[in-house]
């Protein structure tokens, strides 16, 4: 019996000595750049071009009214006019031009809000994750509180109080965005913080600020980039919803959400007022989401769990 028990424990040791090394499986299989998702990318490019080049591309001014031409259907329908490809609205304004100019609004708000909210979120996330302790707890509590707040509501409140306009909208969205970013960046920072090179830097006597800026920051950039791209769609949707509810950029500047809202009362007779802006929103958000997914997969499949 003793011999067999000996045999067992020896066997265990032997087993350990032999336990094979894993097969070479380090390849992460990063897709080549050629695998860029072409359709979403093209749509995004088209958007940017439309937004930037609206003054050049648009056949009319978006605010130019022409009452005798009001409520004309799109050019291919009966009663349509080639001058107004997508028809006109109740004030005789060209839908297509308004659509193109609306792209500017969406993009501008998205860019500004993401920049502002993103920067703050990134900073807070890094600070909170790196410093830890009390500051971390307090900051995360604030983040939690902010996250429980319904997005639209805050935006509505602010829009109505500070007056409608670009600045208010950007502020409102940024206020919600930073919390989301902060939370995820913090998680990433916690992982990075545990890595050896950070400990080495501390041992070498680097200041905390330097560590955060030089060591931690570049390593969370991947996550940050993915977060940015994934949230563009969200921001555009929020902006559109707010405009729809009448709390966005005030007229006469065209914005897609508002165009949908305006067209609502004429939905039965003039579908071309509400339909195209909605489709535009759909396509853009879709394109950005798909692009963001691709970016995330390309940069780090690991993120799939978190985000």
């Amino acid at each position, binding site marked *: 019996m003793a011999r067999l028990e000996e045999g067992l424990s020896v066997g265990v040791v032997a087993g350990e000595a032999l336990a094979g090394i894993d097969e070479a499986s380090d390849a992460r299989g990063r897709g080549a750049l050629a695998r860029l998702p072409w359709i979403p990318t093209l749509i995004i490019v088209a958007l940017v071009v439309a937004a930037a080049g609206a003054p050049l591309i648009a056949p009319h001014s978006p605010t130019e009214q022409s009452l005798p031409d009001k409520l004309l259907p799109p050019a291919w329908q009966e009663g349509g006019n080639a001058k107004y490809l997508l028809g006109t609205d109740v004030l005789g304004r060209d839908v297509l031009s308004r659509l193109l100019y609306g792209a500017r609004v969406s993009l501008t708000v998205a860019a500004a809000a993401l920049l502002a909210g993103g920067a703050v979120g990134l900073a807070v996330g890094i600070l909170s994750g790196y410093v830890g302790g009390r500051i971390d707890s307090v900051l995360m509590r604030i983040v939690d509180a902010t996250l*429980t707040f*319904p997005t639209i509501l805050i935006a509505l409140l602010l829009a109505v109080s500070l007056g409608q306009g670009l600045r208010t909208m950007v502020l409102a969205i940024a206020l919600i965005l930073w919390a989301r970013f902060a939370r995820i960046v913090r998680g990433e920072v916690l992982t990075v913080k545990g890595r050896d090179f950070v400990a080495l830097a501390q041992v070498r006597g680097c200041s905390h600020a330097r560590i955060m800026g030089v060591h931690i920051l570049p390593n969370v950039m991947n996550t940050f980039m993915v977060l940015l791209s994934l949230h563009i769609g969200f921001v555009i949707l929020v902006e559109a919803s707010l405009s729809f509810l009448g709390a966005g950029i005030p007229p006469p500047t065209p914005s897609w959400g508002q165009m949908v809202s305006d067209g609502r009362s004429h939905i039965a007779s003039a579908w071309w007022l*509400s339909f195209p802006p909605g489709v535009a929103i759909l396509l853009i958000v879709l394109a950005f989401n798909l692009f963001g997914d691709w970016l995330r997969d390309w940069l780090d499949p690991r993120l799939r769990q978190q985000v």
Partner: protein
Amino acid sequence: MLLLVILALIVFALARVTGNPADLLLREDATQEDRAHLLKALGLDRPTHEQLLVFLGGALRGDLGQSIRYRKPAVEVFFERLPNTLTLVPLALFGAVVMAIPLGMSAAVYRGTLLDRAANAVAVLGIATPSFWLGIVLIYVFSITLGWLPSARMGSPAHYVLPAITLGAFLVAGMTRLVRSSVLEVLDSEFVKLARLKGVSEVTVLWKHCLRNAMIPVVTLFGVFFALLVTGAIVTETVFAWPGVGRLTYEAVIFRDYPLLQAIILLKAVIVLGVNLAVDILYAYLDPRVRYA
């Protein structure tokens, strides 16, 4: 609890920030005197910190002030409309779950096939579609063109259909993806392998062993989903002229009825917290590991 207090403070501050309702309620030719009079009636002439104390004191007693627009206690206005939303939201949630489970499971089981791709496409579209636009399109197709379903306000069960679909649409999308990835993960686990080794039929493996485990992450998010729906209702109710709390919120903002607004935000928060609690209980039922912790 702390969260609620913070919430109350923030709500109070924000509501104040939204400008003075007096200006809206007054007629064009109102004099300064009229204005002062109105402010006094509304209690808005007192210093801010006094207003805050009044508010907090009242809140503890269940009195959240008087709605300026309706001239009734805000709480009353809220609860009048609440049932309308509370019938819509769970319906949307339930509908979403009912759709997401089969879609997500099929996508996982038939991974890589056309079905999976299609389900994913639906999910991706659902997330990208603006709900207000979807509502309008649905109204156009089903109400105006086909005349099958009513387009506004409440009434018969038929009135629920379009708003529920609109509200739940983006939720279905997210949930399908979640179910899919969750099922995929569970399908890989050892106990599923063991179940197959036992000779259990594939159907049982899926619907008994797999589903129960896969639903756990979905259920944990029910609280979040509920909250999302409640906010989403603001837009949906506006589109469908639904007399619920969502539209009430919108109106309160537009008309600067801040007692009402404060009340709404706080009460909504309480409800959401309550639902989260219920979800925790449901979760413990689903996952016995949590029960004995």
